[in-house]
């Protein structure tokens, strides 16, 4: 399939220096995510998943190689351009990172505020997405009274409210029970139909097995070659999922 790359890494190395010794977190990583792809990034703890995702978001610079996101080369962007890039990406954190000084509505509203949308437009979209994650009744609640699952739903609403072309989620189910975790991933899986590229890092292989999609497995900071990525690594798509095609 000939799709334009939403995310592309070319020969990316990342070294961290700890005192005198050097640690290779990523080594010669090359990968490509197309439009509307649903991709899991797996690997053991310390394999480099978070490091790779930070690179895509422009939060870290590669030691060698090139990173492209939404068609832009990260290396050439200034700090304010990187922030502008992240405004176009939906980001979900493991610990949701909601702003405690703001209520549920204001948290979800943030990406729209950054985009400069008018107040009525923001209200319309925020209530709609809160409806989708079944949190409309909590719009005016402070975030610290919510349960972990509810907070994560707010985090998802915040990441999707501005219809991003790319969704990046680092261990979004880390703090959730298996049932809530599956609900969450099912919802993200549905975005495929809207052309949004979904990139999820997780080490929960159960989830990966149940939901299928393309899987990239990091082992000690390396990915299999691009040919191997596109061949056999895909998991079975569950039958309950309608319209899934991988």
């Amino acid at each position, binding site marked *: 399939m000939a799709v334009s790359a939403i995310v592309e890494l070319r020969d990316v190395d990342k070294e961290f220096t700890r005192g005198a010794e050097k640690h290779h977190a990523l080594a010669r990583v090359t990968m490509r995510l197309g439009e509307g792809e649903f991709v899991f990034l797996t690997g053991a703890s310390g394999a480099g998943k978070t490091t790779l995702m930070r690179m895509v*978001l422009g*939060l870290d610079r590669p030691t060698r190689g090139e990173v492209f996101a939404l068609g832009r080369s990260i290396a050439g962007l200034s*700090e*304010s351009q*990187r*922030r*502008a*890039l*992240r*405004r*176009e990406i939906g*980001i979900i954190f493991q610990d949701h*990172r909601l*702003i*405690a*000084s*703001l209520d549920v509505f*204001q948290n979800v509203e*943030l*990406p729209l505020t*950054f985009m400069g949308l008018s107040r009525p437009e923001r209200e319309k979209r925020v209530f709609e997405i809160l409806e989708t994650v079944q949190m409309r009744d909590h719009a005016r609640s402070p975030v610290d009274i919510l349960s972990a699952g509810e907070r994560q739903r707010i985090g998802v609403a*915040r990441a999707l409210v501005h219809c991003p072309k790319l969704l990046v989620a680092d261990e979004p189910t880390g703090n959730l029970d298996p049932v809530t975790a599956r609900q969450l991933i099912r919802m993200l899986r549905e975005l495929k139909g809207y052309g949004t590229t979904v990139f999820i890092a997780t080490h929960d292989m159960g989830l990966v097995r149940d939901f299928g999609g393309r899987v990239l497995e990091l082992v000690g900071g390396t990915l299999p070659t691009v040919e191997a990525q596109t061949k056999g690594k895909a998991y079975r798509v569950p039958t309950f999922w309608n319209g899934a095609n991988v």
Partner: protein
Amino acid sequence: MNFRMALKHLLSRPFSTALTILGVALGLSVLGSFWMVVENLERVRSARSNRPTVESGLTVFLDSKLSAVEVDGLKNRLSADGRFQTVTVVPPDQALRSLEAQFGEALTKIFEGSELPVTLKLVFNGTSLRRDEFLTLQNQLRSIPGVLDVDDGTGLMPSDQTALPTRILSWATALLVFVFAGVALLVSHLIRLAFESLRGEIETMKVLGASAFWILRPLLAEGLLLGLCGAALAVGFVSFGVQVAIPKFSAFLLPKDVVINMLSTNSLLQLVGLALAASFVGALATWPLVARPPQVK
């Protein structure tokens, strides 16, 4: 960032906030009081240095084309003004004679034959005028049709008597710079505390794409609010001093005829402007913190 977050921060640290406002107010009060003294000195000095001029009166030179009736009309018009005790018409030949008496015959020879203007001699009725009032009066007289010029003889006064000593002005400037820096430092310290206490949230907002300016805006507002409160308190302090404290002690501190006036509105506005500018600069010092890349793990 949201303005309510900044306000919440100020209210969550009532002690630091109050202390900062008090510090700003004290600095501004010292500066304001000093400036008030300068302003009053200036007023008293100019009132005193004008006295000889006022006492010597004014000479108004009239257009020689004016008829005797028109001259008389002008004389009556000026006599009606309460500030003048007497208005006398001095014909040219009489003026020439008084010049002769003053400067001798050699000088007055120059004027002989040429047409000397009719003059009016104005004598004030004893009240002393402020310098600015005196100058305004002269300009009013000059704008009357038929008046060629007005002479008050100030050209004969030594100039160092009319200007404030430059030493006082340089002290005032030094104090101003000192207070500006102090206010900026106090405000920037509190704004930095605000940044630190909201740090986790601010860094997350950077990750989500908040621009540096968007984060800074409420911090600037917080700084300006501090400056404004400090300035208001300082105005309160100074006017309290003028209305309550000075009258209590003036009996044995100051000569009876010296009245201390409150700072002029203009100077008060300048003081508030200084406070706002300094706190703006203080708040702006957080710029590097909001502009640098997000510090998140």
